[in-house]
């Protein structure tokens, strides 16, 4: 069994996909398998996939079913001890798997969280958005690993909840995913907050990598799902509901800091989706969001007082409390 399974899903990325593929196949660490789930791409991308012959690569074609479903297919077929993800238009630095493997060997975690770099629209190279949160975690956790029985564990998880919820920053033990029965919430987009929240809340042992292990590209070349102004953004409402409901069933829900972190991280994604929508749909979105949030588990209404004065959360949180208070 390989140490790592890397999963990429692709849908019409065309030649751009080769950046991701080459970056994985040229890793300095060799004990991995690479699964690409082709989520119903057209001819150009299929031809590129057909030209790839590396024995570590498995290409799984399927009819278009969406990102979450495609990732779940990859998870089901994975044989590696650990599973990580890479979007088809991003890449992994050459040292990524080697650094991850070192941390796995040293700490035996359920979950490794990795910082990343970002190439912006002008090709400037920067730290990824959540670098300040990784820095805070490193300061509080010099040993870079936390366990469920550590006194600070939930505080660290609450902080980590505010990391970017995207999938490339996670390496998850396959056995843990199976025992926790964790999957992406098919058939929805904006799926990451669900997976991020639950994998973080259920993992007993979490390690934090010190070196960037993925490179995220913002591009003009291809419209990204995260840039859509259309109705796909309504998916976040279903995903947020699933996330809040599922988290409320976990023991971690008892912790005020952690519970508030989950709520505010969901509210921020909802707010971001709202202000990214076309104006014709916004009123409907707002009404739907209010309706969904009013049905969220009551415990979420008990919020951390500090969050109400935090400029990053204050506005959506006050709106949430107004909505919830009306019920």
């Amino acid at each position, binding site marked *: 069994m390989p140490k790592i399974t890397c999963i990429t899903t692709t849908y019409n990325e065309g030649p751009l996909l080769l950046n991701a593929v080459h970056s994985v196949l040229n890793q*300095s660490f060799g004990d991995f398998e690479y699964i690409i789930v082709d989520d119903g791409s057209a001819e150009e991308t299929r031809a590129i996939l057909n030209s790839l012959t590396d024995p570590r690569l498995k290409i799984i074609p399927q009819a278009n079913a969406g990102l979450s479903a495609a990732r779940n297919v990859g998870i089901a077929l994975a044989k590696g001890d650990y599973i990580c993800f890479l979007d088809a238009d991003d890449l992994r630095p050459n040292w990524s798997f080697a650094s991850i493997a070192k941390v796995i060997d040293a700490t035996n975690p359920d979950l490794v969280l990795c910082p990343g770099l970002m190439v912006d629209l002008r090709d400037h*190279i920067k730290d990824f958005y959540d670098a300040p949160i990784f820095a805070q975690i490193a300061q509080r956790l010099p040993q870079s690993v936390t366990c469920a029985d550590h006194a600070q564990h939930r505080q660290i998880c609450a902080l980590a909840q505010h990391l970017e919820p995207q999938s490339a920053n996670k390496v998850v033990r396959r056995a843990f995913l199976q025992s926790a029965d964790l999957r992406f919430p098919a058939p929805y987009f904006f799926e990451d907050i669900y997976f991020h929240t639950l994998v973080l809340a259920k993992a007993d042992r979490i390690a934090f990598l010190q070196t960037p292990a993925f490179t995220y590209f913002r591009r003009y070349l*291809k419209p990204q799902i995260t840039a859509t102004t259309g109705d796909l953004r309504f998916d976040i409402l279903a995903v947020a509901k699933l996330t809040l409901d599922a988290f409320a069933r976990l023991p971690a829900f008892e912790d005020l800091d952690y519970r508030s972190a989950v709520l505010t991280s969901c509210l921020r994604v909802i707010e971001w989706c709202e202000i990214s929508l076309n104006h014709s749909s916004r009123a409907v979105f707002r009404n739907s969001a209010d309706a969904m949030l009013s049905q969220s588990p009551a415990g979420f209404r008990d919020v951390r007082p500090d969050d109400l004065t935090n400029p990053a959360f204050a506005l959506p949180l006050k709106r949430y409390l107004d909505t919830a208070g009306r019920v």
Partner: protein
Amino acid sequence: MPIDHHSAAPIPFDLALQTPDDHIMLRAFGESIALLAPKNEFLRNDSLWRLQNIYHPALATQTLAQCGVALDIGAGFGAFAVPFALAYPDWRVFCFEPDPLAFAYLQKNIQDLSLTQVTALPFAIGCQKEDAPQDANAVRVALGRVMAGDETAIDRLGAVLPIALYSKSKINMGYLERGHNRAEEFDPVHLPTLAAVMLDCLSPRLLKITAPMAESGILSDLSDAQIDHVIGETWSHVPSALIHKPAKGQRQTWLRRAGTDQLALRKAAYLGGRTSTLDIIFAPCAVLDDDLASLDALLSDPSDDFKVLAVLDPDYLAADDLLALFGNDSRLCVLQTPSGGSAPAWNVGRKQSTATHIAFVEGGSLAEIGFFSHLLDLARYTGAEVVQGPHYTFDAEGPDQVANGLGNMLLRDDAAVGARYPFSDRHYHLCATHALMAQDAAISRRVYRRDYLDSRDIWFPDTGNHADKLIFQTLSLHQLPHVAELDGASFAQRAQGLPPQDRANSILESFRVLIKRAVRDGWNDFEWILQSFAAQINSITPELDPQARTRFLRSMAQLWAQAGQVLNVAAFDLSLLNLIRSAEFLQHALLAQDQIKDSDILADFDAPLA
């Protein structure tokens, strides 16, 4: 010239007796290592800064092959080469470091870490005529032996290399530049120098360069080498064509300009299937002399980094005739299509364009020689979506004015903000886009990234009047904070001289189209757009006759009110209405707001034109 001091320099005595202070910790490429380094704060900090801010992030964005040859020019004590060799163990690394002290540290680090794939050579790399070895074959043979692992060949190589004069900084340890710098700071030193052109013998795929003032020469000499990756820092301006012109290797590049975080010559691995050049789409004004003068001005630029796609109505001018007039210049292409004005011509030309960058020029305008090449250069150094040059409008005497160098008399753009930054032998500054949007549409003095226009679905709407340019200008600028403007070359455009009624129609039409786009694309920031329209309304209102003024103000006010209702954003509040000086507009706006306040108006905005 015989030499005796620069072949594999002996390791200084103090390196044999190391203390913890002799080491610095490096963390890069997934490796954490302690390296021996000279006890000099500047050198250590400088090397670490470059590793953390240039080499490490650059390699995180580039995928290297499993094996290859890397050249480290200006290797210092090994801050790049050593962690690179550890992270990429199947790569062969050749380090060039002419400074004897730094070289000694480099050698010791290589030995201590048993990096057998790394070879250190105590030579500078040169690119001047006098650097050519007398016996190129002997150099080639010696390099071949070095490559084969024969370390003794390094001495033999040194013995056949010419010696060149350099200036070594007494303040910034490790800084070395070619020639005799007479400033107090520098000491002259003579060093063996290997001609850059000979490096091709090593078949490099990656070039890391720290060679102050020699960067362009080295890259020029290596233009035929199959180099896939170029990273480093530059102290002189490297013409971007040295990286972007077609070459054997991919030349993914991150070359940061020293002293600024604004500029880095860059080239991504994937350019969306486009060629890294500029296509200038030329729409004629149908006055033959003016069109020919415009094309002549464009094609007088000797660069081969651009093409001109002239979109001509066959009834106006035959393609063969035009090509013959310009001596069948291979940079001129003619697309024949029935005339429909500038906007359709620009859209037709753009669809045929295969370049990464694009410009839209009208007949009758005059670009100073090199105008667009310089803009392309700036675009490649900034990655900016839009760059521009200064422009002015002229009347019938315009061409003479240009020929007489009126460009030198240009004042800075009103939209300029902040400092001027050096760029090549010129300067550039940033212009605030909100100020540019309030000015007349000046499309043709700009170079645009094609991927940016495509991804934002920015085309010329065919309104059949001046509105197409206003709309394009607003769409292409409103989401950008700044546009970089290059000083020193200018672009002359014929004054439009539109009648006030036509201008009013254009303003109204562009407002209608833009609000529609705002609804569709979910814009959130309207303040600058509204301010721009307020300025235009204020400017045109006094020029209209009373009847036309009333029609115009009423239509604008209705649109304003509808937009406020649909978009539901604070920017449409009455406070912004106060920007518009006309009391009549305010009356119309209040009335319109009152009429629609309870309705679920949708974003149609197809109000009749004034």
